[in-house]
């Protein structure tokens, strides 16, 4: 019997260590480069969907400007003191300060930088965010210093004849 030397000779490519210690696992299925890329693209699609969802959520959430409602009796807030409340929704922290006898200003308590809560500093007459040292002007909420670039969300308030401070709606 003669051997055909032109035919390719099959050579085993199994490494020696695998011949000495053979094992098989179901999880050893090969993932091709194309499948790997497809998984990545699917992940990118999921993240794009999440981004669109976040944008819609952000838009819908800020539509709620709030309905007029009483907050607190003006007599219960001393001049120069702040008062914490929720407006327009129960999950929206807000803060007002009585600057004069009938002079009241109110803002969303969320810092426009990264959403930390701001506090009133009577000695400096400013709103202060302790997270990143952001400061806002007490009466207008405009940025004085720090990383925020937008003013605090203003809540229109008025002192009515019944002695109550009313929130009329959120401006920004």
């Amino acid at each position, binding site marked *: 019997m003669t051997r055909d030397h032109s035919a390719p000779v099959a050579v085993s490519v199994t490494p020696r260590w695998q011949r000495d210690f053979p094992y098989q696992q179901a999880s050893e299925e090969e993932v091709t480069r*194309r499948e790997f890329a497809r998984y990545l693209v699917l992940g990118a699609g999921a993240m*794009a969907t999440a981004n669109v969802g976040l*944008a819609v959520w952000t838009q819908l959430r800020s539509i709620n400007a709030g309905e007029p409602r009483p907050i607190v009796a003006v007599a219960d807030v001393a001049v120069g003191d702040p008062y914490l409340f929720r407006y327009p929704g129960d999950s929206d922290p807000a803060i007002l300060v009585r600057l004069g006898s009938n002079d009241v200003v109110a803002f969303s308590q969320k810092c426009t*930088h*990264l959403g930390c809560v701001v506090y009133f500093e009577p000695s400096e007459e400013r709103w202060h965010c302790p997270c990143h040292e952001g400061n806002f002007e007490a009466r207008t909420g405009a940025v004085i210093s720090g990383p925020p670039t*937008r003013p605090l969300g203003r809540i229109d308030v008025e002192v009515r004849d019944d002695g109550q401070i009313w929130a009329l709606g959120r401006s920004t």
Partner: protein
Amino acid sequence: MSNSARSRQSSSAVVLYVVILVAFQVFLITVAVEAYMTDAEPLAWATAIISVVVFAAAATFLRFLRP
């Protein structure tokens, strides 16, 4: 360089581009969350549009990947 080696290298480049785009998507997610936390609607919408464009680009790159 043989056609096979060149094709293999171009496939690796395509996968690398897709990996870079996915990393950029992760960054865009952080920007979107920040926009949500600060009620920055224009930033949130801009991020969403860019994210969709990046996804379309990644899907386009996938078409150039050899089977």
